[in-house]
């Protein structure tokens, strides 16, 4: 569970998926039509993308949204198990 008073944040595999394809942040930002700062903020989990952007990412990586993003509560439950 997220810390008390903190909004739940999504965990994501964006950096790994990007590195696997050997794309720079600039290249990925151009493919998704967002800024490099947005890509960096999502990769470092400081910003949760909109649903629209999440769908664009899923389409680009040919995955489902759930394969890229995971709610923090699920991630921490997985760590405990």
């Amino acid at each position, binding site marked *: 569970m997220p810390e008390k008073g903190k909004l739940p944040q999504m965990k994501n595999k964006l950096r790994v998926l990007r590195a696997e394809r*050997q794309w720079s*942040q*600039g*290249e990925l930002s151009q493919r998704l039509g967002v*800024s*490099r700062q947005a890509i960096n903020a999502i990769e470092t989990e*400081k910003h949760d993308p909109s649903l629209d952007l999440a769908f664009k990412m899923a389409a680009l990586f040919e995955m489902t949204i759930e394969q890229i993003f995971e709610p923090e509560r699920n991630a921490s439950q997985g760590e405990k198990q």
Partner: protein
Amino acid sequence: MTAEGAMTMQSSGKKNKWRWRFAALLIAGMATGAGLGFAIGKLIKHAHPATQASGADVTALSLAAFYIGSAVLFLWIASNRMRLARILEGNAAETPASDDEVRSCVYQAVVMALAGVLLALPIFAARLFSHNSQQRELSFAGIALLFAVQTVYNVRLWRVSDEFIRSAMATTAALTFAVGQGGLFLWAAAEHMSLVKPVSAWDLLLDMMLLYIFAGALVSVRTARRE
């Protein structure tokens, strides 16, 4: 080691170099702006000994110099697409800045330059045309026109920004409002009870601008690039 780890380690040193260079330029700009504003304030006081350059005016001129200096810095960055890409992504940047990234940087420069001019103009107009109300009205019309142009560029900046940049803008505005209205309420209450001196709209505007800069810096630091 994963491809991701190797990529990050290779680039992080170079990225830091660029970030430090940008931060140093920004701090130098702020210091120069403050010094220049103070010097201009002193100059006004010297040229018009009868009219005191108030603390608020010196603050306004310092802010104006800071904004204009920052605008020049942003234009210099935007003048080279690879330079802009390195500022945004670090030295690992391979692709030059896109049209939207250049446009966003230029719009920010225009908005900041106009903010600087708008902050300085009322001070000079008030002093230069202190005995001529018609010229003061004409100057005010010019200021209102410039403000309209700045609003157009602010809207353009919003439209060219993506969801992340818009979210940072909205957070900065919300933080400024939350702290500003709290401070304003306390001051207004104290003023109503004759505990503090009344403040002018000009003083309030400058306080809000300073608060906005600090809020913007805080939001930027919290969402800053991190490897």
